């Protein structure tokens, strides 16, 4: 019995294997292993990946032309898909017939239960240019033999009779890219000013820090409202888009600058920086070759955590009608129709665009959290 116990191979072996693995792993491998353990962050990463696919192929997922309005189909309720027909997988919808109620003059839509409109995949629809380059008319969904603009309404239509789902796809691209571009802008400002602040210290540091404090102690939303309202209504969509992005990134950079400054301050006294200095590396080389790589992961985490605030800002501004305006389609622009509580009470599906907003904000928060934990794989 005792012999048998003694013959069992020592249990420490697999552990030391793991230790070996850790000691030869690169920084990025360690970060990835650490990140993988954070389950919520992994789920969030998958969701964000889905959002990015929508960004890349928004027109493909949108089956109706998001700009074509049709008064006849105003405020049509969501149309459920029937996935199976007589036991076989063959998705179809019942076409909708609209009538005016003779008493209330309200438009009432009734599904025509007799006929079945078959849903086809990889269908032909409105023409678009993928990434502004490749002309195409392929869409994920379509209806056999009918233009989708008149037959398919997954989550209903808005006041102007435009298909909400298709508009939501385009809006996702607008709103999420505003967040991304805004983060890149504020990263640039943050690294520049935070870097100068942390590197030089002294009076420069003092001035920049006071400046950040001032920026942070002014209520931001009224200020943005003021700046955004000064935007002439005649501006084209793209210019409006960039102006809003710039306004929004005016907040993010202060947070970023603080993170960068803190890192610079703590790294400045590290041995490897001194070693690089002593071996005659130039200032720029020390910053970009030695210091930046060692806190890049922190920057990525901070940037991810800054995106939700940007999304909320854009959505709030556009919701108020001060951000992106009508021809542009963004989450906030879509939610603007949900502003009127009576309208929402009659057609609650107008609130559906809120779901991706909340989902995106939560996903970026969880992802940022996971990245922040993973950024310190030795901690």
């Amino acid at each position, binding site marked *: 019995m005792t012999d048998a116990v003694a013959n069992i191979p020592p249990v420490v072996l697999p552990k030391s294997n793991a230790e070996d693995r850790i000691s030869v792993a690169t920084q990025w491998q360690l970060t990835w292993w650490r990140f993988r353990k954070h389950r919520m962050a992994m789920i969030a990463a998958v969701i964000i990946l889905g959002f990015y696919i929508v960004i890349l192929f928004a027109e493909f997922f949108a089956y109706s032309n998001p700009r074509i309005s049709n008064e006849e189909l105003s405020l049509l309720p969501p149309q459920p898909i029937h996935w199976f027909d007589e036991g076989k997988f063959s998705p179809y919808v019942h076409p909708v017939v609209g009538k005016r109620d003779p008493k209330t003059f309200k438009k009432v839509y009734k599904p025509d239960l007799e006929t079945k409109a078959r849903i086809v995949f990889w269908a032909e629809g409105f023409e678009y240019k993928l990434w502004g380059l490749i002309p195409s008319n392929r869409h994920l969904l379509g209806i056999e033999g009918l233009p989708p603009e008149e037959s398919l309404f997954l989550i209903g239509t808005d006041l102007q009779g435009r298909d909400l789902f298709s508009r939501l796809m385009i809006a996702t691209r607008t709103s999420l890219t505003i967040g991304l571009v805004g983060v890149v802008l504020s990263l640039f400002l943050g690294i520049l000013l935070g870097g100068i602040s942390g590197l030089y210290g002294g009076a420069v540091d003092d001035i920049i820090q*006071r400046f950040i*404090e*001032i*920026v*942070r*102690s*002014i*209520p*931001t*939303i*009224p*200020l943005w*409202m*003021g*700046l955004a*309202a*000064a935007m002439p209504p005649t501006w084209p969509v793209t210019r409006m888009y960039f102006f809003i992005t710039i306004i929004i990134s005016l907040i993010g950079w202060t947070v970023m600058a603080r993170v960068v400054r803190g890192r610079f301050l703590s790294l400045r006294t590290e041995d490897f920086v001194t070693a690089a200095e002593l071996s005659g590396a130039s200032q720029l080389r020390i910053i970009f070759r030695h210091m930046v790589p060692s806190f890049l992961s922190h920057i990525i985490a901070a940037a991810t955590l800054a995106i*939700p605030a940007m999304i*909320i800002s854009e*959505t*709030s501004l556009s*919701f*108020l*009608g*001060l951000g992106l305006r009508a021809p542009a389609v963004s989450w906030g622009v879509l*939610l603007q129709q*949900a*502003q009127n*509580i*009576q309208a*929402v*009470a009659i057609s*609650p599906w107008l*609130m559906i665009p*809120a779901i991706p*907003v*909340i989902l995106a*904000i*939560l996903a970026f*928060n*969880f992802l940022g959290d996971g990245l922040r934990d993973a950024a310190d794989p030795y901690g």
Partner: protein
Amino acid sequence: MIAYLVRRIFAGLLTIWAASILSFIVIQLPPGDYVTAYIANLQSTGSVISAAEAQALRQQYGLDQPVYVQYFKWMGLMLQGNFGMAMEYNRPVREVIGDRLVLTMVVSIAAIVFIWGIALPIGIYSAVYKYSIGDYFFTFLAFLGIGIPNFMLALVILYVGFKYFHVQSIGGLFSQEYLSAPWSVAKFWDMVKHLPLPAVILGMAGIGELVRIMRANLLDELRKPYVVTARAKGLSLTRVILKYPVRAALNPFASTIGYIFPYVVSGSIIVSLVLSLPTVGPLLFKALIAQDLFLAGTILLLLAIMTVIGTLISDLILMWIDPRIRMGMEGSN
């Protein structure tokens, strides 16, 4: 401590000055000047202004002078409490704003009191019972609070109230009969009864964040050996936790108030719009839509001033609560 105070007040003045420049930029942004806009506005309502009057107005605001002179003139008028005319209303800005500014602050402070009152016990609970079902539940709620933009929350609550409880108007700060009544104890009490809803909506995101900060701080503190010692010496659990680690963890928690305040004031503008609260929010919005940037700029500046004062007061309270800040300041000077 006095040196600290002086420095804080100086920093506050600096912020107000920066805010005044930003507000002035907002006023200057539209093409033309305030008087052209004012005249155009009067003309659209049918009244006419003579050239001499226009000239007098231009001179009063110094619009015929370089920008920096205009800025100083404007600042001078502001300092005298002369905030100019609100075009849309054709009344002095001061009258239009009325007690809306104070009400904005009342709503914001109510939200902060609410944030603190809720976040503190939940944070302590979550840290003490780490990884319990309650902890997961509150963490989830906290994340939801952070995830839902507060105007969305306001909309959903309005919708639920309208659809399921058949309440026509949940918003507002006063009941119908007190709307235009002068201030009285009854009116004040009526307002207090209306405050919880906007406070909850405004506070959700803040609560989410503060719960997480409090939880993290307290977890760090609970790990320290002095907690174990105190427990080993026979102190009861409540006493151990509430008397020492919570007080220590409260400091970084309390310092967040400085940035929570501008954040809440900021959020109150949008929430007020959705809930139609009589704060400066709807007024600012209308001014911006009507391109009355003069009124908007004034509101912006007044909001910034109120925020700076609010932050300063909260800093002073913090200093009074926490001896370490007081001592630290004395020690460093």
